[in-house]
Every structure is written in structure tokens, then in C-alpha cells.
């Protein structure tokens, strides 16, 4: 393994993505969850794009296609998250998830 600037950039992107994943899991605010989902997916797409090298004068299309499909898929998941957030807002009046105990009571 050779430590170079590209590897450092990739590691920073990875750390940003994992931090977003942690906040996605622990956050109770639904809009914040959606935002962290986008950041996590954007970091995974950026990692894919970092693997698109020129090959015999052409850019490798596979990471570009993977990143493109991943972003479109993430936007679809974001749409579902926002629909559920809208339903929670309509029922409870807030965008926060209530913590419940084992019996389902607040």
C-alpha cells in the first residue's frame, strides 16, 4: 500500500460517509435523517467516481454508471423517506420520532 494524496482523499470521503451513516442511525429528526442519507450516498458515489481512471485515452465508464445509478436510486429512497416524514408530521404534528418502550408506549 502506497500512501498518496488520492488515498488520503478517499479515506476522508469514507470517514465523512461513515459519520453521516452514524448520524442517520442515531438522529430522531426525520428531515435530518433524509439529509444524512443523501450525504452518505453522495460519499459512496464519490468513492465510485474516484475509481474512474483514463484507460487508453478513455475514461472508465463503469464507476460513472455505478455512481449515476446510485444517485438516482438514492433520490427515490429520499422521496419515500419524505412521504413517510410527511405522514408522521400530519399525525403527530412534529418531525421527531417518539422513543417508545417494548410495549410501544411513549
Amino acid at each position, binding site marked *: 500500500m502506497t500512501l498518496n494524496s*488520492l*488515498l488520503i482523499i478517499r*479515506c476522508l470521503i469514507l470517514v465523512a460517509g461513515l459519520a453521516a451513516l452514524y448520524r442517520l442511525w*442515531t438522529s430522531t429528526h426525520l428531515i435530518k435523517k433524509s439529509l444524512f442519507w443523501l450525504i452518505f450516498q453522495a460519499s459512496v458515489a464519490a*468513492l465510485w467516481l474516484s*475509481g474512474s481512471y483514463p484507460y487508453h485515452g*478513455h475514461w472508465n465508464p463503469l464507476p460513472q*454508471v455505478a455512481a449515476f445509478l446510485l444517485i438516482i436510486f438514492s433520490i427515490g429512497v429520499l422521496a419515500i423517506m419524505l*412521504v413517510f416524514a410527511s405522514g408522521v408530521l400530519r399525525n403527530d404534528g412534529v418531525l421527531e420520532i417518539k422513543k417508545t418502550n417494548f410495549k410501544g408506549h411513549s
Partner: protein
Amino acid sequence: MKHTSSPTLHIFTFSRFWIWVFLLLLSAVLFYGLISLPPAGETNPTFHVASRYLDRGTDETGMACSFLAVLLDYRSFDLALLSLFFLSVTLTVLLFLTAENISLTRLKWGWVWLSLFSSLALLVLGCFSFKNGGNFMDYQFWAVVFGPSARTNGAWITGLLVFLNVASSLMWTRIVLARGKEKRFDTE
């Protein structure tokens, strides 16, 4: 002695413990993946599939752009899966619309019909060409319609139908979310 910690707190700490375990495992796997990638500028053997796409893509698919050749032709099954996923998004939003009793104008219902039609058209055309050709959206089937340029035109048809489905599904979601917001403010 009475147990003082509440079940709620227990679940909370339990989930935090597992996220840390999960994050450590995920970061180890992803870091291994990162260091396995060759450095920039190297003619890498890791992407031998990509080299095939770049070397033969234009001849095989008839598309000058390698990105489009991979997206619309070589990886068109991924597009079909993406179309199925956005069909699910459309149906989820339709369920939300029914549950929330939101009314829409007839014109706005056009987006849901467009999404359903495009995904259904892809499935029907794919299955039809599977029966009469040899594969899903098979170019041997399209050769009856388009002749020698069947493969290129078949790939464009797949791409167009998936694009219509994705765009109409997102427009439909945006409209329903905006209408739900309006209704919420009307009620308040």
C-alpha cells in the same frame, strides 16, 4: 433491589452499541476495498471488463459514448430494476395519497398514469421480446422492426421508458408532497 434503567434507555444504548460494531466492520471492509484500488494513471487490470467495454463498445452497441453504451446496453438490467423500484415509489405515494385523503386535479393524475404506463410498457415489451427473441429486450426481436440498428434502438427504447418512469414518479411525489403541505396548512 429495584432495576432503575428504563426499557427505552436500554434500547437506545443497545442500538448505539450495534451501530459502532457495524461502523467498525463496514469501515474495515471499505478501507480494504480502497487500498485494493490501483493508483491513478495506472493501466489497471482490475477493470478488465471496462477495457472490453471501451475496446468493443462502439462496434457492439453502435453508441459512440461509452457511458451510454454501458448504461443503456450492457447494464440495461440495472435500468429495469431501477424502473421497478420507481414503480414502487409511485405506488407508495399513491398509498399515502389515499391514506391522507388528498384530492388532486385530473391533469396531475397524468403523472401517475405516465409512471405506471412506462414501467408496464417496459415489462410487456421485455417479456414479449423474451418470448420472440432470446432475452429480455432482446435485439433479435427488435431486428424485425429496426433491421441492422436494432440493438441501438432497443437500448434507447429501454432508456427512454426508464427515464419517463423515473421523471414522472419524482414529479408525482413532488406534487403529492406539496398538496399534502397545502392541506395541512388549510386544516391548521
